[in-house]
């Protein structure tokens, strides 16, 4: 399509923002999401009618928008959100994917899951209560997961008479707390999800607030530069070999660019073998392209017939990760049987799978206070701690703070096959 916009006024060059929300019904999170969906016309009439009917049959005197997101039977029966729900809406210039996660401490793992792919985290506080343990925990998790943008939505401003004083106090308190965290970009927005103040439309009740509305911020926050465009990282995912007469000698390496910009002619190194070659070409389906950058899925061809297979990593000769078998990481534990030293697990890092031995658990991080508990020598479900691992083969990793793809891994219980942990690498050595 050559046109700049489609016939219905949407841009063909729409971009994408993934954001994670955390909180409980009490914070007005569901009302807020419901409002974003309603105001962007992303709720269909039949969905709204079903929710209205259920609300009436339950004897509520208001339409419970939480019923829109609580999709599983057990959630509706218990009136709680258990799982991460993904919601979609779009404005003319941007599509949004919301990872909606429950806020209670027993669901930390769900919040970690939702935050892992988020460009932006949305934390809600009730203006009447100010910062709570829960809102601090949410900010800590978003910071640990290196979600680059954070929005603190001070909700229910209508119930504090739209007071600037209340807003300023929460803003100040949060800013002070956030100095202990890694939050590159923070926006504190006073809203009323119920009344609609500063959600989509600017509020007449808070003329003292000069910042953006929530929707305006979501639409305009710049996320493209959050990706690492300097350090080339290309985990080889799949070797494409047609073995047909037409493409007899074709050998390409399929994968998703995890960092940097790759161009034909670039000198590259293949890890862990250390062999060097040059990029002969980069294919995107039947087109040959002049450069590839994150998060494109492409096929890279090399000039030399070097031995490359799944699990290898293509990087630049003078800028490559150091292969490492000793991994120091923050681990979020996700299963009821605790993580203990000497435990053996499967580890999946980029496209490489290996086994890992837990050498030490240095401390457990209290996500409410940031206190490091060095006494506990195990991690229970929903707990986060600093862990030392030894792997059977070297991992080609970077610190998570530099690259969220090459710096992350999951841990798998080899007996049950279940994902039991998520890790963010501090360093490898």
């Amino acid at each position, binding site marked *: 399509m050559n046109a700049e916009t489609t*016939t219905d006024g949407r841009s063909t060059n729409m971009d994408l923002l993934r954001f994670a929300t955390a909180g409980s019904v009490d914070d007005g999170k569901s009302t807020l999401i419901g409002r974003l969906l309603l105001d962007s016309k992303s709720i269909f009439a039949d969905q709204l009618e079903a929710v209205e009917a259920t609300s009436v049959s339950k004897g509520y005197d208001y339409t419970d928008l939480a019923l829109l997101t609580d*999709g599983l039977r*057990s959630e509706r029966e218990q009136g709680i959100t258990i799982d991460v729900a993904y919601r979609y809406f779009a404005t003319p210039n941007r599509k949004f994917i919301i990872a909606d996660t429950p806020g209670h401490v027993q669901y930390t793992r769900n919040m970690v899951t939702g935050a892992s792919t988020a460009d932006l985290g949305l934390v809600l506080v009730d203006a009447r209560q100010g910062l709570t343990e829960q809102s601090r925990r949410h900010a800590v998790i978003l910071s640990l997961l290196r979600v680059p943008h954070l929005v603190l939505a001070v909700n229910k401003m209508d119930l504090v008479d739209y007071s600037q004083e209340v807003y300023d106090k929460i803003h100040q308190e949060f800013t002070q707390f956030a100095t202990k965290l890694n939050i590159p970009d923070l926006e504190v927005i006073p809203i009323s999800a119920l009344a609609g103040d500063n959600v989509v439309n600017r509020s007449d009740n808070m003329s003292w607030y000069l910042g953006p509305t929530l929707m305006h911020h979501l639409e305009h926050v710049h996320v493209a530069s959050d990706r*690492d465009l300097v350090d080339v990282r290309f985990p080889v995912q799949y070797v494409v070999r047609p073995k047909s007469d037409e493409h007899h000698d074709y050998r390409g390496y399929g994968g998703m660019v995890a960092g940097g910009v790759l161009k034909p002619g670039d000198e590259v190194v293949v890890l862990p073998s250390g062999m060097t070659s040059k990029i002969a070409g980069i294919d995107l389906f039947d*087109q040959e392209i*002049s*450069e590839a950058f994150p998060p494109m899925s492409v096929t890279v061809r090399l000039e030399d017939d070097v031995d490359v297979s799944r699990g290898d990593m293509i990087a630049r000769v003078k800028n490559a990760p150091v292969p490492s078998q000793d991994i120091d990481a923050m681990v979020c534990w996700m299963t009821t049987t605790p993580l203990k030293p000497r435990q053996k697990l499967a580890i999946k890092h980029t496209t490489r799978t290996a086994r890992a031995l837990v050498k030490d658990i240095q401390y457990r991080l209290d996500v409410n206070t940031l206190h490091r508990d060095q006494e506990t020598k195990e991690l229970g479900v929903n707990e986060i701690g600093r862990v030392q691992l030894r792997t059977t083969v070297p991992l080609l990793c970077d610190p998570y703070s530099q690259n969220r793809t090459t710096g992350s891994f999951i841990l798998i219980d080899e007996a049950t*096959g279940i994902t039991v942990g998520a890790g963010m690498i501090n360093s490898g050595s």
Partner: protein
Amino acid sequence: MFVRFEAHRYSDRCCPTTQTPARGTRTLMTTTHADYRLSQLDQLEAESIHIFREVAAEFEKPVLMFSGGKDSIVMLRLAEKAFFPAKIPFPVLQIDTGLDFPEVLTTRDNWVNRLGVRLVVASIDDAIANGVVVDDGKTSRNRMQTATLLNAIEENGFTAAFGGGRRDEEKARAKERVYSHRDEFGQWDPKMQRPELWSLYNGRIHAGEHMRIFPISNWTELDVWDYLGREGIEIPDIYFSHQRRVFVRDGMLMSETPLNPLREGEVVEERTVRFRTCGDITLTGCVESTASTIPEIIDEVAIATLTERGATRGDDRFSEAAMEDRKKEGYF
């Protein structure tokens, strides 16, 4: 309002600029990425291709469930791109309900022939004849479809089955993982789902179990149409406006067909319609529409007030948890 705690890591380095194209390339993309931004459709495509390659690399015997509908056509297109210039390294599975639209079967055959993929057809009638599925006269074809599918997966030893489910379709799907585990009975347990982080998918299964894979989980109905329009690929004619003899049942416009006998009081008339989904001809309704091109369909979808399943799928209307219940049993 704007607090910056940490300078951006690369703000002090030089920014990448647009590069002149390398010499000797066959064709070059028409778009330039001066700011290294991917459109949302390109991001969705990249994510889906990543999933296809991951499954092909890690599973012994994947299969792609292909109904001939628009979502499965998008899947097949993505699979084509993921492995090009090699052929798609797994077969395509279709459940023949005996109640499929003939136009859909034509499109299926065209796609399969063009790509040279192997087509496995599992028919409900064969399953009944072989005693795999019991037709007690009370069970709907839709439920029998599940048994036929599970039997086909077991018989062929498939370890992963790609499905075209999208999270925007229905609220049970909104919580389903991209890799969705099925036990040895083909059942989905929504409370025992594995956490799914970053783009790290866990494909571990035990013998007899399989994984359902949903590579277009994050696509919406509008994304699917935008993509079909951009790619210019073949889809069944019934998605476009046409004249059809229809009757009203349960508030939906149903096709006149010998497979779906009229009930008392139902009157057939000719209307200008199109289908929003392709399912069982006896359960899938159409909508009145004059949209005869993809841009016209997009205009229509963009202002639609009903979900595609709520509007035209009898199989999802039985109860509030209809989809969840069927999924637990092993439905698509």
